[in-house]
């Protein structure tokens, strides 16, 4: 995942097992985004994307973890988040990314929305194995 001249500036792994944890994830991501020098709009984007993915991990994935990394590439700084669960996985990723598709009575906007809110988006999921979503937002 990490490219050659990426330097991890600090990593935290947070558990996602309750809606309180989702709040904690948002707070951690917010403070990382501020530390990386992201402006208020970018901060809000990555925090909102984190909120979506954390809640997906909790609700659809049955709980999991997020790895929060402060990253830099040359002079650019940013935040990278990796959400991971060992839940049921997503059978059809393209379908899940479509706006309005939901299996849980949501708006069905979270996954696609978090992709649009991020500079990098990578998803890896297979039925029965679980789901891993990595996003990054750069200054």
């Amino acid at each position, binding site marked *: 995942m990490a490219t050659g001249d990426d330097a991890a500036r600090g990593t935290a792994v947070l558990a996602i097992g309750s*809606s309180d944890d*989702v709040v904690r994830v948002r707070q951690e991501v917010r403070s990382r985004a501020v530390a990386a020098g992201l402006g208020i709009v970018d901060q*809000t*984007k990555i*925090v909102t994307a984190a*909120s979506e993915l954390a*809640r997906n991990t909790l609700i659809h994935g049955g709980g999991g973890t997020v790895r929060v990394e402060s990253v830099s590439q040359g002079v650019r700084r940013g935040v990278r988040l990796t959400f991971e669960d060992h839940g049921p996985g997503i059978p059809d990723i393209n379908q899940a990314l479509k706006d309005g598709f939901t299996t849980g009575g*949501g708006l069905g906007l979270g996954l696609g*929305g978090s992709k649009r809110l991020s500079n990098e988006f990578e998803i890896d999921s297979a039925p029965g194995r679980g789901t891993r979503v990595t996003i990054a937002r750069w200054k």
Partner: protein
Amino acid sequence: MAQNGSGGLAQTVAEHQDEILSEWLALQVSGGALQSGRIKEAELRTQCRTFLDLLRDGLEQGGTDPEAPAFGRAKEVLAEVSRSRGMQGFTPTETAAFVFSLKRPMFNALNRTIEAAAGEGGGAVRAASAATARDTWDVTLLLDQLGLHAMEVFMKAREDIIARQGREISELSTPVVKLWDGVLALPLIGTLDSERTQVVMESLLQTIVDQSAEIAIIDITGVPTVDTLTAQHLLKTVAAARLMGADCIVSGIRPQIAQTMVHLGVELDVTSKATLADAFRVALTRIGRAVVKAPRAEAAAPVAARRR
């Protein structure tokens, strides 16, 4: 099944229980356990005696493995002591001292078995020393484990308090306020997650009924993140309010939130205004009121809107 060496340990504790108890108590008192006034000596004595009895039972039946079921009761009592200390505002150090200050009296009791063997010659002393060294190590491990257990319970109690306070604050910080006859405002502050949103929305709907309100302004200036769940809660509230005959206006959507909502793809199918003041103006217009400028002399108590 008693583990190797713990039979002797249990016996030592049983034989010296009174000394251990009084030494343990004295150590805690001299360490300042009673100074804060949060606990009386009699209560501390009862806690110590109960725990020591159960610890001895545990040693007799379960060896020195703190995970053994025989230590279940001892751990329960310890958890109770730690939890109540957490609630009463004891420091972590004060709480940990309960278990850790038991070490010295235990070691002293073990050493007394060597002294007792002194009369029986060198061989007996050597055997007693070896047993004591082993027991000392076992006791150390056991009490360390129990100490950690006590700290976990203590921290949990503290976290529960913080969580409860958080919930109390969140309920307090979302009052439904009446701005005018028929016009309500709900200034939301903080996180809009499940439980709290439920409380807030219910109280808004109830107030709409109670006051026959026509318009409810939901102000989200103080909401740091609007994600799909928040949006869904807002949409549901707007729909429910509409069923009850009230229109909602959402105000205080800050620029960064607006941009984020666009990327997310959520559309709030509702009138929205940048500020609460703008929303209030719209509300007044809708109920047939207007804000006019009054001559200063007339305005001993400034009138913002003229009634019919």
